[in-house]
């Protein structure tokens, strides 16, 4: 469904390297993309995969690659390059058990921190996290939309359990957003490849090979892409890289709330654990307990408004995620001040609805 979403979004270039549990996306793209007028290619490693995508994106194509944790580690250099050069690209990161090669055929949600906090300087990389096959489709479309709209790398963060589980999908119920094309330069004479009036603006794009002269660089640069040291404009460009994400944070925010206005307890989850959480919610509510639930789909930037609404009247918060230390719980901490925050964490296998329900019950009783 990630591949389907990519094709629907207009992805026309894919470079991949085999890795469980992301190989299915690679295989489907190799099979389907040529029929859609695109090119899918086997790269010799993950570094090349993402470099090829960035090179093709500079030529104006919508591009994607897919990998898992070990491959993602190799891509971080080029993700930063895409961020710095404001080049749109989508990376589907299908998580598996780590650290290192870990467990290729075991699921995990252990790469949240590794994915988000992978840039020097701490810039926000938008991350969408689907929990079902339908959401894989929808959120892939969102990922492409925002990659193109913001001229930024965007991550679709899924895992073995979502990525490799087959399920029945009601076609036609998907909420597919309209995918924008990146905004293009119109005036060659005044064009600046990294030009913006306000820091939150997204610079117009000019295709490499077109009539408008393009200057691309991963080094600290001014609006025209010129290397400058100690120039205030370079700092302005760096700040702009974050401002353009912040300025669109609420527009990017996606969450599925299931709130009880009387609840003083809130369960938060994402990805595959959101599924177990929804089932746990049914168990808890069947016991007559007042509890709210928030599934976060846009992990980063953190959807503050949705979080604020869900937190109204709440004094206890549980964050359920399949990693050891609560990586997303830590990222949410600044938004949860004054609340008692509990982690529901596990590695090696799915967190079950029973485990979540018992953790919440244990406190409530």
């Amino acid at each position: 469904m990630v591949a389907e979403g990519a094709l629907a979004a207009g992805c026309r270039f894919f470079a991949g390297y085999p890795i469980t549990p992301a190989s299915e996306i690679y295989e489907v793209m190799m099979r389907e993309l040529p029929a859609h007028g695109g090119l899918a290619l086997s790269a010799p490693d993950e570094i090349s995969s993402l470099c090829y995508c960035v090179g093709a994106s500079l030529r104006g194509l919508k591009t994607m690659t897919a990998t898992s944790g070990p491959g993602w580690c190799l891509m971080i250099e080029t993700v930063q390059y895409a961020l710095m050069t404001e080049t749109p690209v989508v990376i589907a990161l299908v998580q598996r058990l780590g650290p290192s090669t870990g467990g290729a055929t075991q699921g995990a949600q252990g790469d949240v921190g590794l994915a988000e906090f992978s840039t020097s300087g701490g810039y926000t990389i938008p991350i969408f996290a689907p929990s079902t096959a339908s959401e894989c489709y929808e959120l892939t479309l969102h990922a492409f939309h925002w990659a193109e709209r913001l001229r930024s790398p965007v991550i679709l963060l899924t895992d073995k359990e979502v990525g490799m589980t087959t399920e029945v999908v009601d076609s036609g119920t998907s909420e597919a957003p309209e995918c924008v094309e990146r905004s293009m330069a119109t005036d060659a004479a005044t064009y600046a490849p990294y030009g913006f009036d306000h820091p939150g603006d997204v610079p117009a794009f000019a295709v490499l090979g077109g009539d408008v002269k393009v200057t691309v660089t991963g080094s600290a640069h001014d609006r025209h892409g010129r290397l400058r040291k100690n120039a205030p404009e370079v700092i302005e460009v760096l700040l702009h890289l974050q401002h353009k994400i912040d300025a669109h944070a609420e527009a990017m925010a996606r969450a599925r709330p299931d709130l009880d206005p009387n609840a003083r307890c809130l369960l938060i989850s994402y990805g595959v654990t959101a599924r177990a959480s929804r089932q746990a919610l049914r168990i808890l509510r069947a016991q007559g307990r007042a509890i709210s639930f928030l599934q976060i789909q846009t992990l980063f930037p953190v959807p503050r408004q949705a979080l604020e609404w869900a937190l109204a009247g709440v004094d206890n918060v549980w964050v359920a995620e399949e990693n050891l230390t609560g990586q997303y719980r830590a990222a949410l901490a600044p938004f949860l001040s004054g609340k008692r925050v509990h982690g529901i964490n596990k590695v090696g296998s799915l967190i079950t609805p029973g485990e979540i329900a018992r953790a919440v019950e244990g406190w409530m009783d």
Partner: protein
Amino acid sequence: MDGLVAQAPYLAPDAPLPYCRGCGHALVVRHLSRALERLGLPPRSVALTTDIGCVGLADSLFPHLHTVHTTHGRSTAFATGMALAEAVLEPKGLPAQAGLKPVVLIGDGGAMIGLLHLVHAAQLNVDVTVLVHNNFLFGMTGGQHSALTPLDFATATTPAGNSTPPLDLLALLRAAHAGFLARDYATSAGLDTLIAEAIQFPGFALVEILELCPTYGTRWNQLTGAALQEIAARQGYWIGKMEAEQERPTFLKVWRQDKETRKSKIENGNSKIEEGQTPGFDFRASSFDFPSGELRVVVAGSAGERVQSAAALFCRAALAAGLYTTQKNDNPVTQGTGFSLSEICLSREPIEFTGMESPDVVMVLSQDGWNELRANGTLARCRTETLFYLDSELPAAPQCGLPAKAGQVVRLPLRREATPKGAALAALAAWQVQAAILPPGVWDAALTTLPAQRREEAARSIKIGGRLATGTAPCA
């Protein structure tokens, strides 16, 4: 063409160059500029793609070319991406000649850290030209030795002389089937002609340019005026253009030629099950009793015995009956040995949790499957109500220590009757007959989703399963 070049010179003849006095890089950019002028390439049809190091300072010297300053060693990979994109842009009606020519400027350090990218670009034969500025060391960072430093050459990190033999880039890329390979000196008068030839070459072309770093190369080495020639001779380096092993079509040409063949191959020969194909069965016409809530089934056997594909077919049957299903597979990292298992959920409502807190039905087809269910904790989570289908070759129930109460264990000669590869499907079919979970006709609907050559065999396994089910009562 001359007019265009006159308006947009590639490198202004009087441009101040940012290199140290006597640096070979200055010679190379002048040769490059002359080569581009000679070819008369429109400036916007060239993407000067530069690597990290002093070599990366060239961007600003060519104000009319597209320039891409990249990360260390990756310049060739980015350039390859640009060249590959041509395959997709082509349908928009751009003639091949109007495309973009990436020209990569990389140093000896970058060539080694990005060696894989050079090798793959050569293998693909993408239309990319690479100029390797080999000055035998890392200049920008203080003169450290590189993988291309000649034997005995002194650098900041090999003060007594380098003792590791240098990589012969040309010999290596020849093995990667590069079509155009050449080596020359930065001081050579004919270098511009050679560079022009490389750029004009349709496909991957690499020129290794030998030069000396005037800051570090000359600092620790006693060098004569003919130092470059002496060094090249000592390494046994080929100078000039190498004869290509044979002419090869570019990636783009192969891609375009293959397009039609590939399309028909996929359409005719693909034996994969059509992804997302819905079985042709009108489930709305059929009413049947399916328990409320979810039904969770585990099927466990050995790799290569079609456990997961049997489960997939069963899910399609359930889909034909209008149910929601999920199928979660597991196997060891090796694909063809050890266990193979599928966990299936069935429900009238969309399914949230796809795991197995406690299964309702467990089917075990081989010892591998049994061992895994014990190891992963599935057996420990079974209830006394859990229904077991066991192959009769497995140890008898009491020895297995099953929690099942009487009447909950069905033992069938699945492997013997349906063959090991048909056992999983036969077990599912047997359960379907005994428990009547799905309405009749759904197997037929599911079978239509299989490729023709697999259909008959699957139908036989289903039939055997049904026959075994009717002839056997559950026993403890």
